[in-house]
């Protein structure tokens, strides 16, 4: 699997650390809504298909990337900085 880091270019998956489901929404820090916190901490989507994920380029620039990956084919459809910006589409 190759992930294209906007800083570093296409790099082997061995350089990256999976940092979980990118769909999770962290409640406001002061929120006391336990259901929302529970969903954020424990609930994970597990689709057979396109999945929005966070990966850290831990063996490189250490930036966090938002990666859309097909969990069936392992095709990487797009990558961008988790902070936003520099989106690369790769589905042809």
């Amino acid at each position: 699997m190759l992930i294209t880091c906007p800083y570093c270019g296409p790099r082997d998956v061995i350089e990256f650390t999976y940092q979980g489901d990118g769909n999770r929404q962290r409640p406001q820090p002061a929120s006391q809504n336990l259901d929302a916190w529970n969903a954020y901490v424990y609930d994970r989507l597990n689709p057979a298909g396109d999945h929005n994920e966070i990966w850290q380029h831990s063996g490189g620039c250490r930036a966090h990337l938002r990666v859309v990956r097909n969990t069936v084919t392992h095709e990487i459809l797009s990558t961008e900085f988790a902070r936003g910006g520099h989106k690369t589409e790769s589905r042809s």
Partner: protein
Amino acid sequence: MSPRRTETGGRIDRLRTIRFTFDGAAYTGHAGDTLASALLANGVTLFGRSFKYHRPRGLLAAGVEEPNALVTMLRGEVREPNIPATMVEIYDGLVAVSQNRTPSLAWDIGALNQLGGKLLSAGFYYKTFMGPVIGPLKGTRFWMFCEHFIRRAAGLGKAGTAPDPARYERMNAFCDVLVVGSGPAGLMAAKAAADQGVRVILADLEAHFGGSANWSGEIIDGMPAADWAQRAVGQLEGNDNVRLLPRTTVWGYYDGNTLAALERVTDHKETPAKGEPRQRYWAIRAGTVVLATGSFERPLVFPGNDRPGVMLAHAAERYAVEYGVLPGQRIALFTNNDSAYRSAVALKKAGATIVAIIDVRADISNDMRRLAGEAEAELLDGHAVVATEGGKALTGLKVQRFDAMSGALSGDERSIHADSLLMSGGWSPTIHLASQAGAKAEWDPARQAFLPPKPTQRWLGAGAFTGSFSTAEAIAEGRAAGVSAAGGTAAPAALPTVEAAPGDPDPAPVFEIKAKGKSFVDFQHDVTAEDVRLAHREGFISVEHLKRYTTLGMATDQGKNSNVPGLAIMAEALGKPIPEVGTTRFRPPYTAVSIGSLAAERFGDLKPERLTPMHDWHIANGATMYSAGLWYRPMIYGLPGETVEQAYVREAKATRESAGIVDVSTLGKIAVQGPDAAEFLDRVYTNMFSTLAVGKARYGLMLREDGLAFDDGTTWRLGEQEFLMTTTTANAGKVMQHLEYFLDVIWPELKVTVTSVTDEWAGAAIGGPNARAILASCVTGTAVDNAALPFMGIVHGRIAGVPVMICRLSFSGEMAFEVYSGAGYGTHVWEALIEAGKPFGLVTYGLEALGTMRIEKGHVTGAEIDGRTTARDLHLDWMLSKKKPFIGSAMMDREGLIAPDRLELVGLIALDNRPLNGGGHIVEELDEANPHDSLGHITACCYSPALGKYIALALVKSGKARQGTRAFVSDPLRNRFGPVEIVSNHFYDPDGSRMHG
């Protein structure tokens, strides 16, 4: 001259004799021999005993698919089992032994299993051993009783127990075109791609490139095929853009055209050259892969087809042509296709007598009749072999008339005297890698074979892999694939010419001859045709279930010979065509892969080590080092004759009485900088940091998002917008990643950067009643008295001319200071401190004394912050700020995390004055015979010089409420039982008067 060695021919070097031993007997062979060819040349026919029935077995094949001749290779104390003798290149001093026999290969007690053959049929274990326990020896309990004996009797080689001293390497490689297989198709592909100027890797699992060209006897471009192949290899060798990898098995095809390969670098050498690894694991990322992996010849399934002397036809041809060894003098062939006729001619030329060619087909082409005539063989068309004769070697066979359409046998049996029977059941393309890469293989009724699927990744096929079994086709397809893979267009240049024997690639659809006796499908796992039918009768209709129930294709050869015949027999039993039965998907690895090659640099001399700046000093001054993750830290600085306990007790005692110094450079250190640094720390720590004054430090605790404790450490405010965070040694990486995640993903609006500075600073902690006096005597540029350097204060000064940063904080519970200097000056400052400490009796102490003093103080480490404990469990709830939210604050008060029966941190004192053990359980009632109802467990233990007792920290159910009560330690594993008193975790100086001074 060996009895079976031909006078001339083959690529062995007859002038070079190699000496080796097999099962303790000395043999000789020639350079270029495999263990299989050398033993065969010596007249050895018996190579192993079969898995279940212990039947004698000889060579079936000549290559990687060999199921029978598995040997254990010995190198000193190291043994490697289950290696096909066909893949072992001999070298002087090689030692190999056979497997699965007691006491010897020729006289094997386990052969008695053959008498009880019916008992050991498919599903034997399930039927006999599983199920309810009725009597004392029935069902699962019976299994438990018998398992030991069965495991000894059934099986392959035994793994060794000696540590493997060999070195393994991992290599990453990139290429535009990876060609797998170096037969005529692979060589053409590599050459064509290389000519386009792209980066090419050519890998072949054999020692010599050339594949079938090495033994086909064909003429390519007017020269013998083997010479043509060597010329092609020579041309490739000269190219800078080509990397040749012989002895390299590409065993895995993964996503994104990443392939895994194993190169056997020195397995064929008596002694490796300096620095050479034993094996090298290649991770190859290829633009396009050309699969030119060839095909496997299939055995025919008939009674006695496993007797030593029965061999695949092409294997015999290969032994004769490539190694100059005849498998027998009187050879019979049994076939369902044309390819065996070529083998017959080749063996005839090599000097054997071909007594008969038995062909299941009645309709034989004139070309084949001519080849049979050339081999001077009697042609028995419309016949089949129905039995073989002989003990540990073949002496003859029986044939009968056979109707290929109905499978019916008729007429009288006729005996044929032969010492070798060669069989050919057609050919199966080696589609394993293509199957690993994705789609399902497709059945081709003409070829009677599964052909490669449509590519789901960027690969192209060429040659026999695609079902094109002739060399002319292989050459054309290989060149086309090579050009196309390199992104070029085909040049109109003429293709090499091929002179080859004629032959129709399509076999008759005959897989099995049904006659009385055991007919083997999977030789390595001893699965017979009857086992497959039995599985069908018992209701196993899915091919996946068939495989698991009969274990067909599940041995180390992964069904390279047995896959298609097994399916064909199953399909017949089901009354369905083969494509409807389907095939199982091949998975990596293609062949066995050593664990060592996968571990590679993670072990041995290539493993990375982290050493503190003072490492060499510790070694020079008698430290016993202890590995903690990748770090090496002093455990004790033992004096001659001291035990570990004596050493740490001395070190801890001296520290509490005068002063001690310890290397703390391994602590994780993270610079947290920026306008929002204080705000950020307020969010990640449970306690407040924005209120911390510049020049002061504070102890901080972090939780995970789920509210459990994560890590602790002190953080120093060096400036308004600059903090130095310290973490535990073990969690340094995790904490860094945690901080980066929140800054990048959750709070990108915060203006903060975090930088790991662990390796930039050397740290020494100096503690004890005299610690301040020692510092005062060597620090310049700052005072270190209580006013200038109060508890948790930070000052900057110099030691021996080097700038240092000193923070007054204590892990030992004594008046203590952490002295940080630039890592390059770590030893310089350390030595200056040691020198300054001499008048005060300063001792160096290691991890053991550090741990002892922290247990006495009741501080927590990773043993207590174990991912299951909360701040409250550790009595750190005083650190949970109520004034602000922080990571984990919302989740930490959940019902289960505040329950009254949680495991809480306590201290233990051994009332029998004996050492306690980490992991020992705490119980209310001592029941040594039947330990039960654990209250918790010991996390850390030591002899406390301050208390004069054996003490421990423990996590105990409702521990706080139990303080002052008695319980027992129950540690059946180490037979340690005894009374303990549960006390507060703060054993020593609970009010902290010593460190506050």
